[in-house]
Each structure stands twice: as structure tokens, then as C-alpha cells.
């Protein structure tokens, strides 16, 4: 019982923090508002850590909080599942959230929406916790839409900017396309299993493997495959997989702290979490896994390519996030679910770090985000520089930083995978390694090295950010260095996640067991050399030979054009879906409602009545001789009929 209260307290603390700082913020003042938010989320982090330790010692939990509704023979419940997977997610979410809360004090110091911002991010933490702690699909969907709502509110936080409110509408709608699949997936789960409870569904899944349905075109589909594909559509929306990725780069219109929290570390990984959670289902469908693998590989490769040509510092990090989400998805497709979550965790740390470092640069540059106007910042911003390099090394997968272990494990898993499409995915992730190293160090070199390219005014005022900004950077840099080495062994050997995710035999490369062995093996494997090559090229292009990028761009004009237009997804969607549905709506309204129904049927009927009455009115002229004449004609007619019938 006491544990249940503990579990309940974790999300509710965040909710209360959100209500106090968000709704009462204007009354209680800025300082009290951020105290409330940080206090609530900080306490949630401490409690989550306690829960994680408790779970490590084997105390898992699966129970109901309250019955939300009953209908037919189904009970819809709100409840918690506390197992290693949710414990890892809880710690990651609350830790990154806490760092972002602290950072916000500095970053948003001058913003009039200060208290509102704290309310939103605390609310986000609540919704995200509800998502990861859920023990059923209903509550999962609640958290899923909850984080979507807060993401919508935060992308549009600066509501006077047209670009921001376009981006948040786009983000919500693209996510809704994913939710369309997700909700139908939930419908399919209920139709097949008669329950939305994870444990019940997973227990019943193996015996449902053979069940199939036939679509109207005569194709036969396994139920489980249909369910998995529908759920994956949801995951594609939230985790921004091609072709539903278009919202994530635009989400950078929001303040930087939320780019770190929501659009890098936590919310966008909800889709990865979802599939890891559903691993008992996905394991039963090779078709679904193959789709997951190929979509992930496409995302990893295409988005890394787009990142090469970005000049906005946040957008580079955003495209890198997309690419890394692709890596996680690839791991899921290769049945290496624990590896995907491992990369999710390390990525959360170093990507939040990179975003916050980018934010620190942006403050120093007075909200300039174009890297072409930066350069040489390392002298005036040493802490930001150092932490940013750590984050970039981790992202590029250089040992012994965190990203090395998780990325290497993914590459190894894809190498071992027999899922259809694994060959393509293997090439994609290897090419991705070069690209990742290149664009991350392109960012470092363009921003911190070389000659300063900003105007004199800005340059004279350059200084390191305040402590509320640098302390979270340092605190995030620590796990970015060590989390990989610490977690790699338990994550790969299965002791970390236990049975909370399925680990099929042979899906995770055990190869060199343990962190030290992996480090020792690194010089003899391709990924390290690919990463170093990427860094070297970046150094050549942006430090040693600054004239090379222009020269290459001129030679590869078509490629650059395609990349700068991000493969044309945005234009296509704008034309076909946005403009298309509006044109369709306009047509239906003008021709269907106004012309056909109102014009022809309603007013048409009225007009017929009017015309008829005009006609009949003429007959009733009121003149006696008209009537008499009519009577005679009638009489003649009647008599003729009687006579000649």
C-alpha cells in the first residue's frame, strides 16, 4: 500500500506543481512559481530514483488506481505498471526534466510568460510519467495525447510569431495522423483480446498468432501484424519517423529548453518506448518488424543527410535527433529492444545537453541562431564549449562516451539481425555514423572555432551564461560521459530490463562482453574509424580549409538543393494535404451544401411552391364571369364524359 502511494505521488507531484505554477503563477510571483515547479519535479526525481532502486531489487508492481469506465464486459482502468522499463524511463524523464527546469530560470529570465512556461513543463512531466507508468493502452493514450497537447502549447509558446503558431498546428495535426493509427490499433487490440490491459494482452498474444483477417482486396493479414503496424503508425507520429517526421524540425520554433526536454530527450522517444513495451506483440510479427526496421533505417539515413546542410544551430540538432530516433527504431526492428531503450537513455542525456548548450550559445548571441554568424566562441564560453564537445563526441559515438556503447550495440544488433531489410539497414546505420560525426563537429567547429563572424556589438558582449544555465550543462555532461560504460553490460545481458522487454536469443550482440572489452575492441571495428573520419572531414572543411565547403556545394548543386528542400516532404504535404483538404472542403460546401441541398432542394422546393401558387392565384381572379366561364367549361366537360363514356 505504501508503495502505491509512492507511485501515485510521482506524477501527482508534477501535476500539482503545474497547477500551482501555471494557474496561480501570476498571483504568487515568479520565484514562488519556479520554486513550486522545481520542488515538485525534483521530488518526483528523487522518488523515481528510489523506485528504480526498489525495482532493481525485484519489487515490481502492476495494479489499478481506479476504474475509469466499464462498457459491455470490458473494464477500462487507470493503473500503474512499475517494472525495469518504466523505472528507467521515469528516472530519465524526471532527471532531464529537472535539469531543464533549472536551466529555464536562466533562459527564460526575461520572458513575460515565465510562470506559464513552468506550468507547461511541469504538466508535460506529469503527462509523460502517466505515459511511461501506464499498465494499459487507455492510459498510455491519455499520456500520449497529454504530451502532445503540451508540445502544442510549448511550440506555440511565443504565440505572436506566425512561424511558431504554424509549427504547433502542424505538429499537432501530423501527430494526429499518427494517433489515427494508434487509436485504431487500440481498437484492434480490444477487438482481438477483449482487454486493454498489457498483462492480459501479452499473455493471450502467442495463442492468437495464427488468427488472420482478409481485407476487401482478398489479401490475408495476421491480426497481430495489423495491430503492430497500426501501433507503429502512432509511434511514427510521435517519434517523428519518415514520412511523419515533418513536424519535428519546425517544433524548434519553441523555446530551447523545451526543444531539449520534449523534442529531443523525452516525448519524441515515446514511440520508441511504446514499441519496446509492445515487444511481446512485435516479436510475433516479422512483417511488422521488417517495416519498423526499414522505416527506421530510412529516417536515420535521410535525416542525417539533411542535417549536413542546415545552418541554424537548433535545426542541426533537431535533424540529428531525427536521425538518432531512426537508429533507435532500427534497433527495435532488429528485435534488440533493450538496446533501443539503452540508446534512448544515453541519447536523452547527450541530446538534452547539446540542445541546452545550443541554447546557451543562443542567449550569448542575443537570439541569433545562424551558425554562419558565429565562430570562435570557445574563448568566451569555455564551459558551454567543453560540454558541447562532450555531447558531440557522445553523439558521434566516440569511445568512451555514452553514445559509443549504445550506437555500437545497435550496429552490432543490425549486423546480427535476420529481419528482412537488415542488409539495407546495416549499410544505412554505417553511413549514418560518418554523417553524424561530420554534422556534429561541423556544428562545433562553425560555432566555437575559426574566426568570429558576428557583428562588433554582439562580439563585445559575449560572455559565459549564468550558473543556472551552466550547472545543468555540467550535470548533463556527467551521464553523457559515463552512462554508456555503466549501463552497457546490464543493458545488453538483460539484467537491466529483466523480462519487461523481450530479448530474443541472438538479437543482441554479446560479442565482447562488458564495457572494457568493448573499448578494447573498438579500434578493430569499422564504426570508430568511420566516426573519426567524419570528424576529420569536418575539421578539414570548417577549420583547416574553409574554402572547401563552397567548392563542394558548387559541384554538387543538385544534391544540396534536394537536401535544402528536405527531400520535398513539406512542399508535398502542404500542396496535397493542407491545400487539398481545404479545396475539397470549399468544393463540398459550395456545391454540396449551398448549391445542391440549399439551392436545389430547399429553396428549390420553396420556389416551386411559390410558382405554383402564382399560377393558382391567377385562377382566383375574383371576377364572376371568369368563374362562370369555368363552370360552363366544367359542365360541358362533365356532360360530354357522361354521354360518351
Amino acid at each position, binding site marked *: 500500500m505504501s508503495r502505491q502511494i509512492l507511485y501515485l505521488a510521482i506524477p501527482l507531484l508534477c501535476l500539482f506543481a503545474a497547477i500551482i505554477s501555471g494557474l496561480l503563477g501570476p498571483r504568487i510571483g515568479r520565484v514562488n512559481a519556479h520554486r513550486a515547479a522545481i520542488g515538485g519535479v525534483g521530488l518526483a526525481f528523487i522518488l523515481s530514483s528510489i523506485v528504480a532502486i526498489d525495482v532493481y531489487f525485484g519489487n515490481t508492481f502492476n495494479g489499478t488506481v481506479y476504474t475509469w469506465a466499464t*462498457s*459491455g464486459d*470490458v473494464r477500462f482502468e487507470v493503473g500503474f505498471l512499475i517494472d525495469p522499463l518504466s523505472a528507467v524511463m521515469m528516472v530519465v524523464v524526471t532527471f532531464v526534466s529537472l535539469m531543464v527546469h533549472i536551466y529555464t530560470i536562466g533562459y527564460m529570465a526575461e520572458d513575460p510568460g515565465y510562470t506559464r512556461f513552468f506550468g507547461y513543463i511541469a504538466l508535460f512531466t506529469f503527462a509523460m510519467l502517466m505515459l511511461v507508468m501506464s499498465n494499459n493502452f487507455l492510459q498510455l493514450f*491519455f499520456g500520449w495525447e497529454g504530451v502532445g497537447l503540451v508540445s502544442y502549447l510549448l511550440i506555440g509558446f511565443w504565440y505572436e510569431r506566425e512561424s511558431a*503558431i504554424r509549427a504547433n498546428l502542424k505538429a499537432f495535426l501530423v501527430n494526429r495522423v499518427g494517433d489515427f493509427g494508434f487509436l485504431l490499433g487500440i*481498437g484492434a487490440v480490444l477487438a482481438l483480446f477483449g482487454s486493454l490491459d498489457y498483462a492480459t494482452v501479452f499473455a493471450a498474444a502467442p495463442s492468437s498468432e495464427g488468427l488472420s*483477417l482478409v481485407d476487401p482486396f482478398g489479401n490475408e493479414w495476421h491480426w497481430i501484424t495489423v495491430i503492430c503496424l497500426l501501433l507503429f503508425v502512432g509511434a511514427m507520429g510521435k517519434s517523428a519517423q519518415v514520412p511523419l517526421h515533418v513536424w519535428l524540425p519546425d517544433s524548434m520554433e519553441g523555446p530551447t529548453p523545451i526543444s531539449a526536454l520534449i523534442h529531443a530527450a523525452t516525448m519524441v522517444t515515446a514511440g520508441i518506448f511504446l514499441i519496446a513495451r509492445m515487444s511481446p506483440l512485435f516479436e510475433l510479427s516479422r512483417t511488422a518488424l521488417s517495416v519498423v526496421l526499414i522505416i527506421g533505417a530510412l529516417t536515420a539515413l535521410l535525416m542525417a543527410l539533411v542535417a549536413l546542410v542546415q545552418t541554424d544551430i537548433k535545426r542541426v540538432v533537431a535533424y540529428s535527433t531525427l536521425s538518432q530516433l531512426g537508429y533507435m527504431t532500427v534497433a527495435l526492428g532488429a528485435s534488440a529492444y533493450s538496446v533501443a531503450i539503452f540508446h534512448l537513455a544515453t541519447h536523452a542525456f547527450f541530446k538534452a545537453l547539446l540542445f541546452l548548450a545550443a541554447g546557451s550559445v543562443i542567449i550569448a548571441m542575443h537570439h541569433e541562431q545562424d551558425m554562419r554568424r558565429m565562430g570562435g566562441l570557445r574563448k568566451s564560453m569555455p564551459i558551454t564549449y567543453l560540454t558541447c564537445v562532450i555531447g558531440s563526441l557522445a553523439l558521434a559515438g566516440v569511445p568512451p562516451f555514452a553514445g559509443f556503447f549504445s550506437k555500437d550495440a545497435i550496429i552490432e544488433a543490425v549486423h546480427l539481425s535476420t529481419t528482412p531489410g537488415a542488409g539495407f539497414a546495416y549499410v544505412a546505420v554505417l553511413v549514418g555514423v560518418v554523417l553524424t560525426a561530420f554534422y556534429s563537429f561541423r556544428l562545433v567547429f562553425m560555432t566555437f572555432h575559426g574566426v568570429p563572424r558576428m557583428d562588433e556589438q554582439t562580439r563585445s558582449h559575449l560572455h559565459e551564461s549564468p550558473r543556472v544555465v551552466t550547472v545543468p550543462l555540467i550535470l548533463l555532461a556527467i551521464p553523457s560521459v559515463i552512462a554508456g560504460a555503466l549501463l552497457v553490460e546490464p543493458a545488453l545481458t538483460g539484467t537491466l530490463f529483466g523480462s519487461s522487454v523481450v530479448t530474443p536469443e541472438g538479437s543482441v550482440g554479446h560479442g565482447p562482453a562488458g564495457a572494457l572489452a568493448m573499448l578494447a575492441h573498438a579500434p578493430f571495428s569499422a564504426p570508430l574509424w568511420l566516426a573519426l573520419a567524419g570528424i576529420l572531414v569536418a575539421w578539414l572543411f570548417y577549420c583547416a580549409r574553409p574554402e572547401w565547403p563552397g567548392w563542394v556545394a558548387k559541384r554538387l548543386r543538385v544534391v544540396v538543393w534536394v537536401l535544402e528542400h528536405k527531400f520535398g516532404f513539406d512542399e508535398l504535404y502542404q500542396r496535397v494535404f493542407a491545400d487539398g483538404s481545404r479545396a475539397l472542403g470549399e468544393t463540398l*460546401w459550395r456545391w454540396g451544401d449551398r448549391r445542391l441541398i440549399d439551392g436545389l432542394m*430547399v429553396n428549390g422546393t420553396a420556389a416551386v411552391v411559390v410558382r405554383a401558387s402564382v399560377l393558382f392565384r391567377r385562377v382566383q381572379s375574383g371576377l364572376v364571369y371568369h368563374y362562370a366561364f369555368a363552370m360552363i367549361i366544367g359542365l360541358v366537360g362533365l356532360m360530354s364524359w357522361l354521354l360518351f363514356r
Partner: protein
Amino acid sequence: MSWFDQHLLSLVIWFPVLGGILVLSTGSDRNAPVARRLALGIAITSFILSLPLWTRFRLDTAAMQFVERQPWIDRFNVHYHLGIDGIAMPLVLLTTFLTVIVVIAGWQVIRERVAQYFASFLIMEGLMIGVFCSLDGVLFYLFWEAMLIPMFLIVGVWGGPNRVYAAIKFFLYTLLGSLLMLVALLYLYNATGGSFNILTFAQLPLDGPTQLMVFLAFFAAFAVKVPMVPVHTWLPDAHVEAPTGGSVILAAITLKMGAYGFLRLAIPIAPDAAHQLAPLVIALSLVAVIYIALVALVQQDMKKLIAYSSISHMGFVTLGFFIFDTRAMEGALVQMISHGFVSGALFLCVGVLYDRLHSREIASYGGVVKVMPVFSFFLVFFAMANAGLPGTSGFVGEFLVILGTFSVNGWYAALAAVTLVVGAAYTLWMVKRVAFGPVTSPAVAQLQDLSGRETLMLLMVAAGVLALGLWPLPLLDVMHASVDNLLAHAAVSKL
């Protein structure tokens, strides 16, 4: 049963009607403050009077409760016969609750013929409750038609510039439909050998062609009221011209009367015809969900947009009914209550803006959040509820209908789920253009945020939306027995 229980429904029906007449008696606008206070007192008392319907409601039976039956017109065997089950009871409470809101909404806004305005709403309240409680065909028909009169007056007297066209269109549309219903009722009277008891109608065996004719006659009446495509075009016009309170009642309750009619009359009396025509009704419902949502997307007038959104949401209700699945039907019933709250609240929001700028055009606004943060909070909240966000009531109905539909036919469910995208698109696009962005005009810059009265009314509805979204169990518990009974009844062929 106590005397109180036996006459409670009569009290809930006639108290507001008599109260409305009392308000009328205050006469001219010189006594407006008296009329307002009196109206509010009567509305609140009616609401309190209706609460025992829930607290004393028995969950374990599908039988009619709070039954009252007196002979009325002996010659034709007409009875004054009232009673409610788990389908009707929530609608009665919704009516009494929203009437309070509507009285608050009209408080300062209505300055001409104040007593008459409030009296119309109070009288209409009683008549609408009468529709939900009638178990006698003649009584049902009387309430059904009598209710048109105050609504016709509300649109025609306090409405906008094009009010006469709208009022007459509304009147003729619904009247044509309901005349066919009268024919069906008279036929059933003869077929039963002289009874107008709706419960007797339900047990009457009818052959296939007869059922089809009876069903179509009812369908004409109810489809217009819901409204279903293609007989929906009266609704946007009526909404645009109606005063805020009229729009709220029209969307929140009047539309529900059509849906209620399907469950009380059409399906139980002609179950075989209902099953036979179900594909048609489902198709029309899905057309409503998608076609109307696309039409809503391009509306420039906020009220029209919400009106089309209402039609689209009501498509979910009729879809849920004609899938003949427990979850879908219960979802449809929750959707009826939820839509009452959400569409009512959205019309109130538009009313708030209209009272200030006298424009319903989306283009007249922009950047409202800057000057009206509290209002914008509510607008975004209700917009999200309209888009079916979990945690709000809007989610519960859509979720259950989609789940129930999926278990019957996955393709129908997929088409219905399109609303997830399009519904969010038209609602949030409107919010974006009205609330967000830079402040577009000096008039917008002058706007005042919500007054205490306006905050109160929106807060009350928001509480309902949130409570229903977070814990719909109590509402569903009320429905279970009646829905199970209805579905079991409809599953048995009368042939």
C-alpha cells in the same frame, strides 16, 4: 415509491414552464432586473429539483423509473404517462444544467424584451424535458412540436439580421419531418388496437414492409432534428442567426431530441427495419463525420464552423446507435452529453467575442490571447475537448464509439477515426486564427477579458467536461441496464 418520486417528473417539467409564465408576468423591460433574478432562481431550482432523478435512480433495472400515469383523453386512450430510464435521465439533467448556464449567459447581453427572452428559455426547458420523459405517443408529439414555438421565437425575435429566413427554414424543415412521425404514431395507434403507449408500441409485432414504412416515417422526423446529412442545412443558418443562448440550447439539447427519438421510438418499434437500413444510416453518419468536417474546415464564420462541427460530432452518435454494439451505443450516449457541454461552451465562447466586437467572422480577430488570456484559456480548453483530447469528455464518446465500431467493422472505424485529424484541424485552425498571432486590429487591442459572470459560466461547463473526461464511470453506470435491454430487444426479430 413515495408521492415525491411519483410526481417528480411532472415537477421537473412544469415547474420551469410555470416559472416561465411567472417571469413573463413581470412584463416590460422596466422590470428587467426582477425578471433576470427570477429566471435565475427558477433555473437553479429546476436544476436542484432534477438532481434526485440521479441520486434516487436505480442502476440495476432497465424498467422505467419515476413513472407517472394518469388517464388524459379517455376517448382516444391517451394517457399522461411519464417515466425515464438510463437513456433519458442524463439528458434531463443536461437540460436543467444548461438552462442555468443559458440564463447566466443572457444576463447583461439581452436588453430588449428581457422577461420574454428568459421566459422562452424556461418554458422550452420544461417542454424539452417533457420530450425526454414522455411514454405516451400523443404526449411525446405535443412536447416535440410545442418545443418548436419558443425556439422559433428565440431565433425570430432575438436573432441576427437574417433571422426570419433562418427561423422559417428551421420551422418548416422540422415540421415536415415530424408530420410523418404523426402519421406513424396514428398508424401504431390503430395497429395496437387503440393505445398510444410507447412501451406497448415496442412490443407490437409488425411485418417487414410495415416496419420499413414506420421506421422511415420516424427517420424523417429524427434525421432532420439530429441533423443528418443531407437534411442538415437548417442548422448552420439557425445557429448563425440565433442569439448565443439559442445556439447553446439548439446544439446542446434540441439535436439530442432527434437522437433520443431513434432510441425511444424508431429502433424499438421497428428493429428489423433498423437493422435492414443500418448500412444506410451508418453511411450517412460517416458522410457526416468526414464530409461535414471538411466543410467546417473552410468556414469563415465561427458560429457556422461550430455548427458544422456539431453535425460532424452528431454523426458519431448515429454511427454508435446503428452499429448495434454495447460499447458503440454507450459511447454514442456519452457523446450526446459531452457534445452538449462542449458545443454549448464553444457557442458561449463565440458569444463572448460577439458581445464585444459584434462580429462572428474569424478574420475580425487574431491575437486575442494577448488581451484576453483567461478567455483564451477556456477557448483552447474547449477546442481540445472538441478535438477529443483524452481527459476531456469529448474523448470518451469518440473512443468508445470507435472501439465498438472496430469490433464490428474495422473499415467503418477507420473512416470514423478520420475525425481525429480533420476534427483537430478545423478546431485548432480556428483557435490559431482567433486567439494566436499578432493583435490584428485596434478593436481587438481594446478587448476586455472575461467578466466574473462569464468566467463563472465557462468554469461550470469546464468542470463538467473535465469530470466526465476523467471519470465517466458514474454516467456509464446509469446507462448499462437500459442499453443492454435496448440492444437485447433490438436483436430479437419481430417478424
